[in-house]
């Protein structure tokens, strides 16, 4: 049911682990199925120089964490903030509809880690543009 890319990132997840003295940390929980993702960022001169994750969740959640951390590495904070869950899912060659919410977790985790950094720096937290919490209708396709 998963694409080869999802299975590759699930089986050989990139960037698993923690960063010592991270500049930003974001822990998010999944309201849909109850899973948890924690993102760690190392930021230098407004650029994400390292990103790591720890995830308690399904194959799609682990693959999304792996892909999202890959995608934000080397990006400016502004670019990293723009990373959408759809972009993560596309980079994974698609996710089953019922698993789209797992990629939302990755987007939210990155956002939270970025804002954690900004607040610690005395900057204003950025505001979520499109809240996904209203958007579960399409994610929650019933399998029956």
């Amino acid at each position, binding site marked *: 049911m998963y694409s080869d890319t999802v*299975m590759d990132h*699930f089986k050989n997840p990139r960037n698993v682990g923690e960063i010592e003295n991270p500049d930003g940390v974001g822990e998010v929980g999944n309201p849909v199925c109850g899973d948890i993702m924690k993102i760690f960022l190392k930021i230098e001169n407004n650029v994400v120089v390292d990103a790591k994750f720890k995830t*308690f969740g*399904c194959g799609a959640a*682990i693959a999304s964490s792996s892909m999202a951390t890959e995608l934000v590495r080397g990006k400016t904070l502004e670019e990293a903030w723009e990373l959408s869950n759809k972009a993560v899912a596309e980079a994974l060659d698609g996710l089953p509809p019922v698993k789209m919410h797992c990629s939302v977790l990755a987007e939210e985790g990155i956002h939270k880690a970025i804002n954690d950094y900004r607040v610690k720096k005395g900057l204003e937290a950025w505001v979520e543009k499109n809240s996904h919490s209203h958007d579960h209708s399409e994610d929650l396709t019933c399998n029956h």
Partner: protein
Amino acid sequence: MEAQRTIYMDHSATTFVKPEVVDVMIPYFTKHFGNPSSLYGIARDSKKAIDVARVQTAKALGADPYEIYFTSGGSESDNWAIKGVALANRKRGNHIITTRIEHHAVLHTCQFLEKEGFDVTYLPVDQYGLVDPSELEKAITEKTILISIMYANNEIGTIEPIADLGAIARKHKVYFHTDAVQAVGNIPIDVKMQNIDLLSLSAHKFYGPKGVGALYIKKGVRIENLIHGGGQERRRRAGTENIAGIVGLGKAIEMATADIPGHNAKIRSMRDRLIKGVLDTIPNTRLNGHKEKRLPGNFNVSFEFIEGESMLLWLDDAGICASTGSACTSGSLEPSHVLLATGLPVEISHGSLRLTLGDANTDKDVDRVLDVLPKVVKKLRDMSPLYYKSGKEGGSNV
């Protein structure tokens, strides 16, 4: 890489069909294919074959042959028993009692009847998944027309005190249905001694074919038909008979009930070694279900800090077929209603794994699972933010 053997440990989901069963079925596809309702010779052959299967099935349950009705499987049998009794007895009352841990074929049927004006009581279970007979007795009112309680649970394997529950139903003159889909072949059943009025079974859980099952209806039970049409099954269940399937069911149930204690001893010893091996080597692990009152092949375990689907994917990678009660695989994205009913916290239900052993397994399979599973759990725990938080390297099992 050498090709790895598939290790099938999901016998509660379905079983392979035994070669002896396939052998007796084949002539009914090719040679004796006649419609049993017709009059010519080959049709009489099919009719006779169905009669034989009915006797085999009745014998396995301690029933009379005319109390056995063939259906398309467990779900149809459950639907028929519950809707049929509810509709035929609604003048007497509109109250049905069942439990929180039933299969969806029972739960969703009861929910449907609630929309149609019936009241349903869903009995709780204890931490092992057991129904308390005194709770059942308390729930009975003068409006109660049906009690439906599963014989053994498909997820955690808990075996319910069916004879006690049946006796209470009998005492209060309420019809008693049991979904015995997981029980047949694993537990000796005697519908007369156990006060069972209706019993559902499904062939593909005991090495028979899919798409065929039966409903035992005790003589005299008032029940409406579910499938209307022709006069098959003594006018109770319409539709041209699935002859080959019915023949397969008959053979399979005969084989499955020939030596239940002997068969169970073999499965149970493999299963017990698996349970011990897993609980001894993997910390923060708990056994779900009851220690003794459980199906011989059932092992249901929760690993804290990890999620079930990711476990299944890794096990599949090693050729091991298993299942989980995790929300992430449930379609509804909610964890198993059975585990939640036993009081297991949501996040621990999430990390549940069910391995159900049967005739496809050998001791080597157990060795291999005991080799692979600890590695899988470790790998996933190492990437779990919960494990990191708990700061636990070791820990005791419950």
